């Protein structure tokens, strides 16, 4: 019975013809930032290991972290860290059964985007 209509059923929205919304895009970026943070995290771990090993090793790692390449990775990681943190807080709010309606989801989405940018600028200024 389940196979009677095979091949002629309405398909779920396909990615290529699917207009992205704030909710889906912010969610996708939570995944990208969270998993992408491994790059910055490994760099920080390497830097601390080099510091623990000795001055020569530290000089190498420190030069990489403070080069333009290191600056870009650390700056993007910083934004990713704040964005993913705000996204995580949104998930904790959702898990408590609150804010699941479209309006709250959008509001929290805008807070994630704006908040992560502001927190990044604030952190760069303080540090």
């Amino acid at each position: 019975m389940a196979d009677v209509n095979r091949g002629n059923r309405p398909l779920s929205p396909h990615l290529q013809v699917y207009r992205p919304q704030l909710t889906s895009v912010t969610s996708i970026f939570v995944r990208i930032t969270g998993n992408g943070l491994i790059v910055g995290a490994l760099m920080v771990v390497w830097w601390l290991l080099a510091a623990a090993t000795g001055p020569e090793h530290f000089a190498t790692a420190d030069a990489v972290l403070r080069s333009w390449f290191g600056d870009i990775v650390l700056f993007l990681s910083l934004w990713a860290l704040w964005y993913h943190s705000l996204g995580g807080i949104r998930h904790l709010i959702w898990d408590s059964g609150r804010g699941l309606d479209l309006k709250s989801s959008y509001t929290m989405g805008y807070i994630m985007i704006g908040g992560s940018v502001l927190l990044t600028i604030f952190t760069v200024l303080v540090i």
Partner: protein
Amino acid sequence: MRILTARKRAEGLGAAKSGTEHHWSMIVSSAALIGLIPAFVFTFGQALGGTHEEVIAYYQRPFPAIVAILTFLVGFIHFRGGVQTMIEDYVHGTRQKVLIVLAICLAYAAAATGIFAVAKIAL
């Protein structure tokens, strides 16, 4: 007469397997990281840019060292859970299993390395 109850026969047959434990572990680690991440960002930011002696002296203090160790421990356990979910979504079959094993090994290796480094500096 059936000896097994209906529940006992159905248990473990669902697709989710250990979904609730995984989800709960992500909730606990993310809640912990809300406090740890700002503390780590601002302590690490203090240390970065200093000379080798300054960095060593800074991470010999208890607060920055403990924050860094906790962040690595909880952070990489959190990464372990998140990256597993991502792999499960996009990769299937044997490749999925291999990638999950590698990612989990990477997470624990990174956690151990970070904790070792801070402990060596601090002690």
